[in-house]
């Protein structure tokens, strides 16, 4: 048993060492896997803010992951074909600049979450879980049948988008970029968690009545938290799309929502680094079990199941001794 902050430092170190080793050993695919882990972890960090800190069990975060992906896909495909996105009332051109794409992804993810949250937060418990799922499915079917951007075929972007000063097609550089974003977001989320906002959000999670009786507008607070959460997951979606140079409606599928949730539960709900551990472990399992048997999903299912039953608090909860609080 070690302190959570030490554990977190070890986790970060592993995430740096593995790709560094892969560069030396010339194993670019290992870097790709690590990049995927980092990006999915980021999606998880987004959900974890709503789910862990806020107690808002969203089963529809694929909506934000997908909208981020499509923000990238739509902008980049227009840049690729040199056609403007819209001409009336004013011209908007596509772009292949990552920072612009990220900004669009974050804003559209945040706005979408604001809209969905405003409606969903009227419900609670299982109803909330299911109504968020419903919104996710709505977008999924919309994306499949909307022909303008490929429908079920999705959109292929032949070249990864650009970031000033980097060659994003070099795996380690793209990894570095994603890792840096993850660190920045982790820093921000950590501050958020500890801020009065985070304190009140978690307080309302633990006891909603209490938060209300000290004068906190719980609905409005949760709505803002939900929007922040959606914006972060949308950013991850944009990066994921760039990792694959491809977007498709699968990003909106309920399995995607479930998977992001799995990362959090595996790693540890409301633990800052929970999604990172969860996503990394999931990808490792998927990668190695896939080589063991055609029926590898049986093993994956069994492992997930035993994790739920016997590792309460996720892996971080198991390994670290300190309960996360605002103390200190």
């Amino acid at each position, binding site marked *: 048993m070690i302190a959570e902050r030490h554990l977190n430092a070890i986790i970060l170190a592993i995430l740096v060492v593995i790709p560094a080793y892969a560069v030396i050993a010339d194993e670019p695919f290992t870097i790709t896997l690590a990049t995927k882990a980092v990006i999915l972890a980021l999606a998880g960090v987004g959900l974890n803010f709503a*789910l862990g800190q806020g107690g808002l*069990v969203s*089963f529809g975060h694929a909506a934000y992951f997908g909208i981020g992906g499509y923000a990238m896909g739509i902008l980049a495909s227009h840049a690729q074909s040199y056609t403007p996105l819209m001409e009336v009332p004013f011209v908007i051109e596509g772009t292949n600049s990552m920072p612009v794409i990220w900004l669009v992804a974050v804003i559209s993810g945040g706005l979408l979450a604001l809209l969905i949250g405003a*409606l*969903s937060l*009227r*419900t*609670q*418990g*299982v*109803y909330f*879980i*299911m*109504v968020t*799922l*419903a*919104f996710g*499915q*709505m977008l999924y*079917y*919309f994306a*499949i*049948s*909307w*022909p303008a951007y490929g429908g079920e075929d999705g959109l292929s972007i032949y070249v990864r988008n650009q970031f000033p000063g980097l060659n994003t097609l070099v795996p380690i550089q793209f990894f570095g970029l994603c890792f840096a974003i993850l660190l920045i977001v982790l820093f921000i989320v950590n501050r958020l968690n500890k801020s009065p906002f985070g304190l009140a959000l978690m307080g309302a999670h633990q006891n909603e009545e209490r938060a209300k009786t000290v004068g906190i507008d719980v609905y409005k607070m949760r709505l803002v938290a939900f929007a922040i959460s959606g914006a972060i997951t949308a950013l991850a979606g944009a990066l994921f799309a760039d990792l694959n140079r491809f977007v498709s409606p699968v990003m909106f599928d*309920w399995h995607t929502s*479930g998977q992001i*949730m*799995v990362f959090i*539960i595996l790693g540890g*709900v409301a633990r800052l680094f929970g999604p990172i551990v969860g996503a990394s472990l999931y990808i490792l399992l998927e990668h190695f079990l896939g080589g063991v048997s055609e*029926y*590898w*999903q*049986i093993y*994956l*299912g*069994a492992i*997930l*199941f035993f994790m*739920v*039953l016997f590792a*309460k608090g996720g892996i971080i909860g198991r390994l670290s001794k300190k309960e996360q609080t605002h103390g200190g």
Partner: protein
Amino acid sequence: MSTLLLIEQVLNGLQFGVMLFLMAAGLTLIFGVMGLINLAHGSLYMIGAFAAAAVAGWTGSFVLALMASLMAAALFGALIELTVIRRLYARDHLDQVLATFALILIFSEATRWTFGSFPLFLDTPDWLSGTVMLPGGIQYSLYRLAIIIIGLIVAAGLFLLISKTRVGMRIRAGENDREMIGALGVDISVLYTMVFALGAALAGLSGALVGAIQSVEVGMGEPVLILAFVVIVIGGIGSIKGALAGAILVGLTDTLGRTVLPVVFSTFMEASAATSVGSALASMLIYILMAGVLIFKPTGLFGSA
């Protein structure tokens, strides 16, 4: 669209709804009594269909196949309840979602391992195939009519079970107050296993009934599972009455939506585009319905806060 066609489509929507009800009833019972979100309910549906297909293949009897589906699903239901599910009652919804999600993976791949990657054959029996002429000149599938009747019988049976019998009284007590039922001296763990097996049997039955006119294949339970959740959420979780109302509402909305919307759109759009846009909207319609219901009634139509 002619009135006659519209009536037939209403009937189709009703039949689709009744089918959903069989699935949703178990789901809502299990949630109402044990407070469990069971994503693996779709797997029990699949098990029912596979058991029916296997038994129909051996014996050629549809009735035996239906009984096999009931028994196999109930057996599997009881088995997983006794071994794993009961450990989840005290957990929060999040753990339940993940654990039962894991069960889906296990069940799906184990089924594929047992039965192979190809869909199985299950057909309607001769005495239920073909069509009947309904009043007004509607030619309607006998089998679908049978599904409507079976569904309504099951619904009536469930209402009687819950309102009139001792077991039903215990179920109602369990919904209201888990401690009280313990105090009544009822062995609660037996009750839970029974309720879970009952819900599983209903799912298995609907899998078999539907399997005869659809495709018996791995993964067949998932789309239905999502629909069943939509149904019980619209109806209010835990309420059988709500499940019935929700199922029929969803069935009608979906069926009428996908036939009427393209027609509506074609009044002001070019035909091909109208079909495409109309169908796109139709595929989103039940989710829009669900969101709409929850916005105005946050605990569903018949749900209690």
